[in-house]
């Protein structure tokens, strides 16, 4: 990486000869150095492949069923609302939405959240993460990322000039690992990674791709280190409502001493099964939010008004129905619980070993017991799971995501025998996948 950056000023771009004269566009390099090393993206590659082969898609994490009627109705209502629904709203978040979010989450966190100071609405949780890294991570800062991690954290750290330091969740030693709860962080290993340059730690609970839901003692261990070493904590909680088997989602920001140093990121897309709306938020102490606001006002400035209005109505409804059977936050995890069971039994029936997720959209599966001839020259130099996933798309028409994409280069070799399934799909999609796996296992 360092060598590329040093050589970069000497790279030139010559426009390809299209039958016209060669022209030199810029003797200096065109692109900014912050884009070096962050151009590859697993989603761009695999969604294209799934589309090309028309695969049954259990890969990318989005529902193939609709959002609940009440939010769709709220969006339509907003669209036919007054002219102001189609014009700019408040830059840091539509007033109605930040008030709904503050009211809703104050009750959960047990902390009075100021809608105008402590909340920033963003274009999806993705942009909230971007604002956090850009606002608070500087050249030379180290950021600890717990693996497996949602892949965007690493390039975002890099783009902010920071250095990513990885600490993996590891399956508890001993017998077969059956649940995401069996994957744990070593307190010693985590502590050993902290240096004078460490600025922040990034956690994701429920975790993508593993599905781990951190227990209060695990979060307390992390919190203790954050307080001892005066670190920030970026807590990605987009799947916060999706917990199963009685697992409880806990907000690290609600632990003593953590509110003022934690940025909690949430997503309307995952909350209301409307990933295409791209409405997210960051909630934190105003002292941190104010820095993120500066990034926001100099990058996108506003988010779409009507979508924010609709999400606001969604949260108001859920505030009233919270804890009751009519609440979408009860109904969605109940529905996904079933789908999770369905996919897990299907995988077991063909001899695969799923790791049962305590939360989230995904399930990882150990594929080391499967023996296939991955006879594909084009993938020769890639890791096993990447090759396997591509083979599965091309030969069996089933799309998944290779799990080593969620690990750092230094640890990916240890975890290249897992693939990730998304089970937030219509039953018909899951049945089609089941059919493919059944046929495949019968041939063997």
């Amino acid at each position, binding site marked *: 990486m360092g060598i590329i950056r040093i050589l970069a000023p000497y790279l030139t*771009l010559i*426009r390809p000869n299209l039958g016209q004269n060669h022209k*030199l*566009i*810029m003797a200096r390099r*065109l*692109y*900014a*150095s*912050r*884009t070096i090393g*962050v151009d590859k*993206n697993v989603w761009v590659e695999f969604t294209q492949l799934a589309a090309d082969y028309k695969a049954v898609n259990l890969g990318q994490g*989005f529902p193939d069923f609709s*959002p609940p009627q009440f939010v*769709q109705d709220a*969006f*339509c209502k907003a*669209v*036919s609302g007054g*002219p102001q629904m*189609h*014009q*700019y709203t*408040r*830059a840091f978040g539509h007033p109605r939405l930040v008030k709904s979010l503050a009211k809703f989450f104050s009750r959960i966190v047990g902390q009075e959240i100021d809608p105008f100071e402590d909340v920033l609405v*963003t*274009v999806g949780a993705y*942009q909230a993460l*971007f604002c956090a890294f*850009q*606002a*608070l*991570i*500087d*050249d030379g800062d180290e950021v600890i990322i717990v693996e497996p991690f949602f892949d965007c954290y690493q*390039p975002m750290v890099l783009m902010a000039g920071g250095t990513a330091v990885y600490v993996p969740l590891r399956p508890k030693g001993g017998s077969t690992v059956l649940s995401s709860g069996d994957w744990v962080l070593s307190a010693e290993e985590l502590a050993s990674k902290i240096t*004078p*340059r460490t600025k922040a730690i990034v956690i994701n609970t429920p975790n993508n791709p593993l599905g781990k839901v951190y227990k209060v003692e695990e979060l307390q261990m992390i919190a203790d280190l954050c307080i*001892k070493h*005066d670190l920030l904590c970026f807590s990605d909680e987009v799947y916060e409502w999706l917990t199963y088997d009685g697992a409880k989602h806990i907000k690290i920001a609600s632990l003593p001493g953590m509110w003022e*140093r934690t940025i909690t990121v949430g997503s309307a897309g995952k909350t209301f*099964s*409307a*990933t*295409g*709306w*791209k409405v997210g938020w960051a909630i934190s102490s105003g002292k941190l939010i104010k*820095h993120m606001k*500066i990034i926001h*006002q*100099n*990058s*996108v*400035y*506003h*988010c*779409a*008004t*009507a979508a924010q209005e609709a999400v606001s109505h969604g949260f108001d409804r859920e505030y009233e129905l919270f804890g009751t059977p009519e609440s979408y936050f009860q109904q969605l995890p109940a529905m996904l619980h079933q789908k999770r069971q369905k996919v897990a039994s299907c995988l077991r029936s063909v001899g695969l070993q799923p790791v049962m997720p305590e939360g989230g959209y995904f399930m990882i599966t150990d594929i080391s017991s499967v023996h296939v001839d991955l006879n594909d020259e084009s993938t020769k130099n890639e890791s096993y799971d990447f090759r396997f996933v591509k083979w599965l798309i091309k030969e069996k028409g089933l799309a998944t995501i290779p799990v080593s994409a969620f690990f750092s280069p230094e640890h990916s070799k240890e975890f290249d025998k897992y693939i990730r399934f998304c089970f937030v799909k219509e039953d018909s999609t899951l049945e089609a996948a089941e059919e493919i796996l059944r046929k495949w296992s019968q041939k063997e």
Partner: protein
Amino acid sequence: MSCTRRILNAVRFTCRSSPTSCRRFCASQPVMASRHAHARRIEGLDKNVWVAFTSVAADPSIVNLGQGFPDIPPPSYVKEALAKAVSVDRMNQYTRGFGHPSLVKALSQVYGKVYGRQVDPLKEILVTVGGYGSLFSTMQGLVDEGDEVIIVEPFFDCYVPMVRMAGAKPVLIPLRPKSGKKTVSSGDWFLDPDELSAKFSSKTKAIIINTPNNPIGKVFTRGELQVIADLCIKHDTLCFSDEVYEWLVFKGHQHVKIATLPGMWDRTITIGSAGKTFSVTGWKLGWSIGPEHLIKHLQTVMQNTLYTCPTPLQEAVAQGLLLNYKLMGQPDCYFSSLAEELEGKRDRLAAILQEAGMTPVIPEGGYFMLVDVTPLNQDLSHMGDDEAYDYKFVKWMIKEKKLAAIPVTAFVGEESKEQFEKYIRLCFIKEDSTLEAAGNILKNWRKV
């Protein structure tokens, strides 16, 4: 990392492990850098004219000719297209990161016609969160620390902070009024070619132009763009052309795309906006169009910042573009009918200002009109000396006269403030009733 920071970090670490020595040491240190210190890239970027003025003007009793958004309704077919999109399951989930397929195809068609060349929908277009998002992706993708970027004053205010956030240096050059004459049109303001030429250096990475210009409303002529293009080619720089108001050009003037001048396609990013095109600023969709070897770097930024734009909104914009593509060149095409409607409002506002004894700068394009408020002779000495006259004037006018505008020095650098501090910017894409209300306030200015 700077030496100072390294030392501070090391000291902090030792401090934590030995409390007594820390207390002694800390007492002798005047200020310990906060552990939650923000990144340097945001330093000095916190002020923002919109954050300052929009909340004040949101009071419904204020006649708002400030922030640039229409209070006229968008065309009904785009609203219908949005409602329709939301009712389709798939349209509520993630779409292609660099732009929803039906939208990039529609853009490719419309702009293929406008540019007179094939525009590849997948490689030469990026859909972004508004024109703003395109500017950001362009700066982050193509501008590096140590680069210089030339900006024409007055400029849409975000250009300078975005250049600075990219670690580069803004180099400003003002549009100047024709000497002597009182300026009555945005066409009376121009760039001095020698002055412009002198601004280019070996460090110049790009020049940003905005045509039609916000706030003046100048529509750069082909000749003027040629001067800029010649300099870009001579000095081998890029050109970022903000053309969000491209359809809003008034009679007698023509919008020219600098990317269509010889040698310019390969070095230009052109920015457009659904918000300004369809009067839906709250949809926040825009696009960058350019050659693959530039667009790909903007795409890299996109995939590492927000990944994808909202799907149903993109689908609705695609429908709106396709409908108007078929009507291009005809009077009921929204691209031309909006300009016509706006021209009437422009003339109405100009008349209102002239009746009030002022001489507005009649814009050749865009949403805005500048006016020199000197003839109103407003004494603001009670407001202190720490702000430019136009800031004080606008704040006073909002409070005392319930009329909102935007101070023009928000759009210029320090050195040009004096040249522009008697101007305010008024937005005229408003209902006739709003313009008339503004007229009444100005008519009754002297009355207490």
